[in-house]
């Protein structure tokens, strides 16, 4: 649970706030409000009952508040202190307008704000803040929390500022007095949401068998998340509310403003195969179903009473199985989020034992491998424990390790040598770097070292792009866009804040200084881009087995043109390969088309659909390669007609859906230059029925 917070914003709405300063296009008020709206929309976004805001207008035309004393004129409570909703935000927005007056006292407004907070929070534990945005001093300033100052303010206001500054200083350490420039800068820097520590394990860490061995290591420890993947907010699936979803609604995205949306739920129906039912399937009641698992294609039913039967019985434990030297571990094995383990508090024996373990591992440059069951009945995982010592901190970090099943033993060729078919090993080859390239790469890597390229708070060289400087662009990008859209629905989606792209490319200045090194690397690398045309282009030379045997030559010429249904695809490819005239291609396409149609016609349900789909896919691919898109397009137009008219053994619309899904429609110009079909025509072809 995060702390309860209440914040009152006092916004100076005096006539002077209309002015435009500092070369900006917006008025002072609008500019200052960009900060306030950001803060308020954060509150709205949080959707928390215990995060409350109120807004007080200062130097308003009217007076409306709860203090019945004199001297509090031209101050209005625009938004009583409380949780903020989207509709609250919308009601508030039109109220933030510059007034016609310059009357009104900032200190009085603070008194009112304090009164609001007092009344609302009573004596309970709350974080209380007041934020005063005003140009009394020049532009703005702040009471218990943020604020502003202007450097070139008129001397007359100096005293005002001092008074306010004194007030701020008197409020204790937490109060700040700052200029809006600073405040807005602050706002652009992403903020990581802080999350309270989450305990993932609380129990013993052991080495040896406590039950049977005479002496073991047994330490009471606590384990917490160290990293936990933060995710961007996800969009909900919604539809326009029914009363508004008239026939003319037609998903007109331009007119979405003011339209109410409602959530979409999912309801599931269940079907089983039944040869007697129409379409081969029929519905079954959810209540009649049992739970189970698939073992291969066998359904294994597990009765309610022993639903846990496949679960390994485990007991909460954290057992070290052995140690490895640090240099033998590769961080690329890490399978996920890391945790931190510390000794339980107020337990001398555990603290000392833990200390000796951390120290011993650290001095030996070793890591421990342990088997961890975080709670009874949880599946065991293997973790790697890594010691960490700091003057005020001693802990073991851990990362999850893979099991045997988690590693796929793919084979890859070696990177530093080439093995020829005859089994020889070569170290000089076009696939291997020359000495010159190796040297150029080495120079480049050293030149682009950013281990010390950054600057720390004291202006000293420091590591560049440290983890606490990296923000997840996706999270902050979407939050930024949502807040903007909520406050200003009329504006287009804002650009990506540049701070989120800070590490999208190497530092420009560094690149400039090492440009010569980069140039020599590029020269030594001598990389050539494969022209896009040649990539998909059919290789005219025949494919050969490893021996290089010309297989096509083994066949008698007479067999080449005919396509048998049993071996359709190889026959088709062979026919195209040996074709010299367009007529031969046309003939092969025709034969293939007939085979496809008979596959569909003969299909019981969908049992031959996959075969037909495969054949169509091959036809499309081959005819694109041969630059004969017209022949395919002709075929596919005819096929669609037959599918939809039911001449291929009944209702075959389901096959047409499959084709649409797999994008096996018309070949368009961008896919094959010889095609006369446009993208629009192709889209229409998919859509029309």
């Amino acid at each position, binding site marked *: 649970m995060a702390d309860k917070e209440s914040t009152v914003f006092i916004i100076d709405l005096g006539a002077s706030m209309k002015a435009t300063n500092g070369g900006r296009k917006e008025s002072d008020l609008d500019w200052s409000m960009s900060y306030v709206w950001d803060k308020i*929309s954060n509150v709205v976004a949080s959707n928390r009952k215990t995060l409350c805001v109120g807004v007080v207008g200062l130097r308003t035309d009217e007076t409306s508040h709860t203090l019945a004393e004199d001297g509090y004129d031209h101050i209005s409570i625009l938004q009583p202190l409380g949780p903020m909703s*989207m509709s609250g935000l919308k009601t508030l927005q039109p109220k933030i307008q510059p007034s016609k007056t310059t009357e009104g006292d900032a200190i009085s407004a603070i008194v009112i704000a304090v009164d609001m907070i007092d009344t609302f929070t009573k004596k309970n534990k709350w974080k209380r803040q007041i934020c005063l945005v005003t140009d009394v001093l020049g532009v703005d300033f702040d009471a218990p929390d943020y604020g502003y100052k202007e450097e070139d303010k008129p001397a007359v206001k100096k005293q005002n500022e001092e008074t306010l500054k004194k007030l701020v200083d008197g409020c204790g350490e937490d109060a700040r007095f700052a200029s809006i420039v600073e405040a807005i800068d602050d706002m652009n820097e992403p903020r990581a949401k*802080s999350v309270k*520590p*989450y305990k993932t394990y609380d129990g013993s860490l052991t080495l040896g068998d406590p039950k049977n061995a005479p002496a073991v*290591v047994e330490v009471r420890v606590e384990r917490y998340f160290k990293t936990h993947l933060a995710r961007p907010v*996800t969009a909900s*699936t*919604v539809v326009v509310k029914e009363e508004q979803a008239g026939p003319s609604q037609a998903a007109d*995205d331009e007119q979405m403003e003011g339209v109410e949306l*409602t959530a979409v739920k999912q309801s599931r129906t269940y079907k089983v195969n*039944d040869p007697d039912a129409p379409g081969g399937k029929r519905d079954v009641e959810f209540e009649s179903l049992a739970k189970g698992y698939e073992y291969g294609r066998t359904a*294994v*039913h*597990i009765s309610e009473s022993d639903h846990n*039967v496949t*679960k390994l019985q485990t007991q909460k434990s954290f057992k070290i199985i052995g140690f*490895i030297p640090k240099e*033998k*571990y590769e*961080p*690329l*094995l*890490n399978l*996920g*989020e*890391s945790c*931190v383990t510390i000794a339980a508090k*107020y337990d*001398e024996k555990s603290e*000392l034992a833990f200390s000796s373990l951390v120290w011993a591992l650290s001095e*030996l440059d*070793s890591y421990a491998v342990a*088997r961890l069951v975080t709670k009874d009945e949880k599946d065991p995982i293997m973790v790697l424990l890594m010691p960490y010592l700091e003057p005020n901190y001693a802990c073991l*970090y851990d990362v999850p390790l*893979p099991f*045997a*099943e988690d*590693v796929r*033993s*793919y084979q*890859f060729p070696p990177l*530093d040598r080439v093995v020829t078919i005859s089994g020889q090993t070569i170290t000089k080859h076009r696939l*291997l*770097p020359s000495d010159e390239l190796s040297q150029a790469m080495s120079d480049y890597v050293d030149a*682009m070292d950013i*281990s010390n390229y950054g600057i720390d708070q004291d202006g000293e060289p420091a590591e560049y792009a440290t983890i606490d400087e990296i*923000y997840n*662009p996706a999270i902050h990008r979407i939050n930024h866009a949502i807040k903007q859209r909520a406050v200003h629905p009329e504006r287009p989606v804002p650009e990506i804040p540049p701070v989120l792209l800070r590490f999208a*490319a190497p530092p420009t200045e560094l690149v400039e200084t090492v440009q010569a090194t*980069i140039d020599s*690397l*590029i020269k030594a*690398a001598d*990389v050539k881009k494969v022209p896009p045309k040649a990539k998909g282009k059919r290789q005219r030379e025949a494919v050969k*087995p490893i021996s290089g045997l010309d*297989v096509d030559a083994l066949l008698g010429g007479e067999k080449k043109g005919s396509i048998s249904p*049993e*071996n359709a695809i190889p026959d088709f490819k062979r026919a195209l390969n040996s074709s010299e005239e367009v007529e031969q291609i046309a003939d092969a396409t025709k034969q293939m088309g007939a085979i496809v149609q008979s596959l569909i016609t003969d299909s019981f349900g969908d049992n031959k659909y996959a075969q037909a789909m495969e054949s169509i896919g091959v036809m499309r691919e081959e005819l694109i390669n041969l630059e004969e898109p017209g022949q395919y397009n002709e075929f596919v137009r005819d096929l669609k007609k037959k599918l939809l008219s039911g001449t291929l053994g009944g209702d075959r619309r389901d096959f047409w859906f499959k084709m649409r899904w*797999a994008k096996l429609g018309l070949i368009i110009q961008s896919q094959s230059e010889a095609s006369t079909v446009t993208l629009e025509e192709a889209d229409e072809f998919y859509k029309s029925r």
Partner: protein
Amino acid sequence: MADKQRDWRREENDEDEEGEQELDESSFKAQKDAVLLAIEVSPSMLEPPPASSSKKAEQDSPLQAALKCAHHLMEQRIISNPKDMMGILLFGTEKTKFRDDKDGRGGLGYPNCYLFTDLDVPAADDVKALRALVEEEEDEDEVLKPATTDVVSMSNVLFCANQIFTTKAANFGSRRLFIVTDNDDPHASDKAARSAAAVRAKDLYDLGITIDLFPIAKGESSFDLGKFYDDIVYRDVNAEANGTEVRTSKSGDGLSLLNSLISNINSKQSPKRALFHLPFEIAPGLRITVKGYNVVSRQTPARTCYIWLDGEKAQIVTGETTRVAEDSARTVEKQEIKKAYKFGGEYVYFTPEEQKSIRDYGPPVIRIIGFKNRNLIPAWASVKKSTFIFPSEEDYIGSSRVFSALWQKLLDSEKIGIAWCVLRSNSQPVLAAVIPSREQSDEASGTPYLPAGLWICPLPTADDLRDISAERGLDCSEDLKTKMRVVVQQLNLPKGVYNPLKYPNPALQWHYKILQTLALDEEVPEKPEDLTEPKNKAINKRAGGYLEDWAETLKDEADRAARSRSLKREVEDDGVSERPAKQRKAAAERPSGSTFSMAQLKAAVESEGLSKMTVAQLKDVAGAKGLSTSGKKADLVERIEQWVEENS
């Protein structure tokens, strides 16, 4: 239907399953894998190994080893590739069997081919039948009896495989024929038969079916690919430019034929599907192509499904989802659906184009932004699994040599790259460390079970960090550290590496073991051996004495620390009783141990609290302050008082 559903789910979870989706080279194909294992049955395959008194001697005939391996593969694929198909074709058999198809031609077309397990997702019965064949000493059905007449026609075998794939695994993204044989020259004297086989092999190639050969060699003789199989096997078009060699299985060097075969087949267990195929921008203006592979990835048991039991046979039901509006419960059409974000109790809406622009970080790329010393990456900097990348010459010629140069340099200088990665269009960008893995043969390699190349290891961001503020507990003595060091040194894992292959996931294995016994109606087995449990006996044997030693010292130190803490509490209770109770409690619990603060000591001296303490407590305080702990009580009190005077 199933495909549609899978796709729908993918769309629904695209945020979560990012990066899970494997690269779809041709979109019209189903992303499934089918493996047909063709095993030769011949007198030489059946020949038992030479009799030997040695315990380690070979036990299996080549055929037995091949069948055991098939059984192993089948069980493994049910776990690791539950949606993929597998079949077993025995060739060279006297018996002939194809499918019991109604419209099929039976086995007539494919003499000496016995389709033992038809190509399909394996069922429990398939596992059972195969196990029976492996375990039964007597081959009752005479399935494994070799043909007596002619040599078996390889072109016929290949065409049989062709038909099995074409009908059962049509339109699969990956189809592979594994041939296990010890005969390197089936048609030595028959050129026509050789040519016919080559033509049938080309058919398979045209169908996109890959042939993987698993040759078995016996004794000193080697398997000569040049005699026949070089006409049959094609280079994989998707394979790396620098091809991998065919490995021959044989027994010897302490490795049984079975293990050798299992290891060779295992390396092809999953089809090598690339996750992505991307430009890798090593420097501004220098791009190469790499492919990404999911080499390390957590395997979990399949989720539960619903089963319909009212029919003759239990059936897994297929679910279909309809969407309804929450307010009116009316059914919603797909084109009506919009995506919006919840914000302050209402929805904030973006058009699909706007949504897309928000997620757009430019075209996919892996872009190096600089290099760092390897040790700058903190040990805990882990949030997600890593992805293996390997060069491909497809888009940029010369990719391999540049990649190799970078890989070598990073290894030599112990550096890593830092890269901005957009791994697919509209996916979240991540900053990752680019870390090299060593050659498997490299002595220094900690990962001899992984290929050499580069790995994209996503780094945590500031958003992913959790702040743990905990005060440091007590520090132990040098003595205790030293004793623990000895213990650690005794208990290194074999070869000093964590080799995951030695640790099967006990929960996963148990889950499938139980499913198998339920499916086959067998007895529930005893609890299996769990290799992830510590070897307590060995630990005790190797380090028991040192552990006792350590434990004794720990006990002493802990007792002392406990005394000193409770002493401090007493002193505080006595000396500074005017403090509010709450504060005092907090102070007492502060785990600062024997670091008695100056103020506390001073208070104790002034109130004559020191003389109320026991000798043990005084010794503790003196010890903590680096004073001698010898002498009588009065000496201790005096020494401490003097120290306080001098140091306050």
